[in-house]
């Protein structure tokens, strides 16, 4: 009997010390610990949720359809190449994710069927209409989501955020959590930019180029495109450059450009992008192409001297300088009245690469650091006041036994914090509420036992017998009631997101630990009192 008590005491002591060590990193005391302690002992405790430390929670949908469309354009391009190499005259265009080939001849049909297995023929009456196979489209969309995740991770790594979480969710969604970000708008711009960089030749030779207006107001772009739709030569397009007021940073005008649709060079041939400063000290982004890119750039510039080459980012023209000479070495620049931050972020997105498809924002939750601090303070106050109230109540009502229950309560809180620290669980505001609620409910097990003991005492049992049978009889009640709470907590964990999950974690850990402290903790103290002190009466 006594040996059993000793083992229980050791078990209690070990768990208590363990819990304190685990939770220590969350307390100011950790700073004062010796160096060897900081190195060898756990240094990362409970993680604060975004609602408490401030930060960004973003959810995006990767527009897989767009990725499929982009792929369709690539297929069309290589098909065009393929057919012309075979000296077959055909016109290849795309419409959405469909590839349209005319004329409709059986010769072309056979060639495509043999060598382009990723497309299905869906119509052959006047023109040959092909569609990317469903399985292929799914693979493209899936790859796009993976690639978008990787690109976003690269961008955020270079932007510099401590402990970001970037994960895929469901079929095509990406969830991003950035704790402690000071400038949320900048982070959102950085993530959401598609960043497709293209070099396109300006088509000044087409007669319509001279007819384009010098400048228009922002918002009139669509009208212009509509107005000139018929006159634009095949393979050309109109894109715009924004004119920016240097003081207010507002877009005050748009300049139309007639460009060759086919890019001569794209951002995937980039080696590096850096912020540099011109002679006025204004920032711009300097680009360095890789060997393949540099070679193409040299050829293109050499073949198009005195023409203009537009630098286009996400379908916006940034500049269109005249090529004066063949340019070797593969360096170029993007200017555009940038602020230093804008230039920095642009260099980051260019270096990290383009997104395979545009992103659609589904959710954006931003919490400033001050609100989080207020919440933590309020949570602490409520926790302390709630604990004191419960502790006092128990002592007043159950006397010495109440004190024992309070001991179990403190054990409970410390073990709960320790357990959360060991799991690196995320503490959210509802999580704090869960802890405080658990404090109120923690004494329930003891109340159940004490009331049973009182009944046994009334029935005339000795204190020791009353303690024993009180425990025994209360056990299954306590067990059942804890399991039912665990069921709800498990459901909350399964279906909850973010803050709710935090609540589920604290609630379920609280319940499990409560079972431990009530059945081991309090019981051991009673056993010690009964056997060692030979208590004759029970203060309950």
């Amino acid at each position: 009997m006594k040996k059993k008590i000793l083992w229980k005491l050791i078990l209690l002591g070990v768990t208590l010390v363990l819990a304190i060590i685990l939770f220590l990193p969350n307390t100011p005391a950790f700073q004062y610990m010796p160096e060897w302690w900081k190195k060898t002992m756990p240094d990362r405790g409970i993680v604060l949720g975004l609602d408490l430390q401030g930060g960004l929670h973003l959810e995006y949908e990767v527009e897989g359809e767009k990725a499929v469309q982009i792929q369709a354009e690539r297929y069309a391009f290589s098909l065009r190449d393929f057919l012309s190499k075979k000296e077959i005259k055909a016109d290849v265009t795309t419409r959405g994710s469909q590839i349209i080939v005319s004329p409709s001849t059986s010769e072309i049909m056979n060639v495509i069927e043999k060598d382009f297995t990723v497309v299905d023929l869906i119509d052959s009456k006047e023109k040959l209409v092909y569609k990317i196979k469903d399985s292929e489209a799914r693979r493209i969309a899936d790859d796009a989501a993976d690639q978008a995740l990787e690109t976003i991770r690269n961008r955020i790594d270079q932007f510099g955020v401590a402990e970001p979480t970037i994960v895929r969710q469901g079929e095509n969604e990406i969830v991003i959590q950035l704790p402690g970000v000071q400038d949320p708008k900048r982070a959102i711009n950085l993530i959401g930019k598609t960043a497709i960089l293209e070099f396109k030749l300006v088509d000044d030779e087409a007669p319509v180029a001279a007819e384009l207006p010098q400048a228009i107001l922002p918002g009139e772009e669509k009208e212009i495109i509509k107005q000139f739709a018929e006159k634009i030569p095949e393979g050309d397009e109109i894109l715009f450059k924004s004119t920016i007021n240097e003081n207010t940073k507002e877009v005050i005008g748009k300049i139309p450009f007639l460009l060759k649709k086919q890019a001569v060079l794209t951002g995937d041939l980039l080696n590096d992008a850096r912020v540099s400063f011109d002679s006025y000290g204004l920032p711009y982004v300097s680009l360095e192409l890789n060997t393949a890119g540099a070679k193409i750039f040299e050829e293109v510039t050499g073949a198009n001297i005195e023409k203009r080459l537009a630098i286009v980012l996400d379908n916006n023209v940034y500049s269109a300088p005249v090529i004066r000479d063949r340019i070797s070495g593969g360096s170029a620049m993007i200017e555009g009245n940038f602020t230093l931050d804008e230039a920095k972020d642009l260099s980051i997105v260019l270096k990290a690469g383009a997104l395979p498809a545009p992103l659609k924002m589904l959710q954006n939750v931003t919490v400033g650091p001050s609100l989080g601090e207020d919440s933590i303070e309020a949570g602490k106050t409520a926790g302390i006041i709630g604990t004191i109230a419960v502790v006092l109540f128990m002592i007043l009502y159950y006397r010495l036994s109440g004190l024992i229950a309070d001991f179990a309560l403190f054990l409970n809180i410390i073990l709960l914090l320790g357990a959360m620290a060991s799991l690196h669980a995320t503490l959210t505001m509802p999580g704090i509420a869960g802890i405080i609620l658990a404090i109120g409910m923690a004494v329930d097990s003891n109340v159940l036992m004490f009331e049973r003991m009182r009944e046994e005492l009334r029935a005339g049992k000795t204190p020791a017998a009353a303690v024993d049978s009180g425990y025994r009889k209360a056990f299954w009640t306590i067990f059942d009631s804890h399991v039912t709470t665990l069921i709800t907590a498990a459901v909350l964990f399964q279906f909850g997101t973010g803050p709710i999950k935090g609540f589920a974690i604290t609630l379920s850990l609280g319940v499990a630990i409560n079972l431990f402290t009530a059945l081991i903790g309090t019981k051991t103290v009673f056993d010690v009192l009964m056997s060692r002190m030979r208590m004759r009466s029970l203060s309950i």
Partner: protein
Amino acid sequence: MIELLKKTNIDFMGKKYYAFALSAIILVIGIIAVVQVARGTANLGIDFTGGTAVQIKFEKPFALSEVRKALEDGGLKDVELQDMPVEKKVLIRVKKQEETIGGFSEKIVSVLSQRFADQKLVVESTTEIGPKVGERLRKDALWAIIAATAGLLIYIAFRFQFRFGIGATIATLHDVLAVLALFYVLNREINLVIIAALLAIAGYSLTDTVVVYDRIRENLRMRQRDPVEVVVNQSINEVLSRTIITAMTTLLAALALFFFGGEVIHDFALAIIVGIVVGTFSSIFIASPIVLLWKGKRPFAKR
């Protein structure tokens, strides 16, 4: 020994029809609330409807009407404002069902910083939720309630008997509906955090019911000769002091949360407080009578 209650002998079961009448009224309101929530006409949080919420802290005191006017002049319509004058804060909510989000919160902030150019406005939080996410969260919340109910019914039926499972489930749903009814009547916002509170209440209410059931089962086995009604009454009386003391300690903690826990958790604490009260009521007056009224052979009878 301090005793809150001396040995009691209250005829709880004799008063069950009064209790049923009271519960029926609450339940009707609760069901109306559920229907309104399902139709989307109740005061749902933007986490369910989709939309934008921005919380802004002012440096100096401000008039709410001025904020409203500034937003209206800026072309922002259907804006809900919630004032927190002591902390000089305002919560601006716009519920909308739009395909794309983004930019809306920026517009709110820029409109207000122009109007209140003489002071620095701090954007404490912004939440933008697209309709797709709102729909998913709504579905998840519904599934959570269904899954929790099913899990609990199965567990109680397994540990006790089927009629106990039914009694506990009805009592638990009763409590959840009662809190929902209160929030509906008070026109308080029903959001994800409140759903978490409802499930916490379900857990608490069930714990309470299990404690009473446990004693009923024990006494039914021991006193095979006494009528079931007498045994049920006696069991409730025996655990009454525990029921009330636990309700009190949990209430103490919930009250601390309500008064000191801060704005974010205020409504959560309110839900818990009401939940504790109805949870205690329901385990005595709903869960126990259902076991009693169930036709069939005596529960836990010796073979």
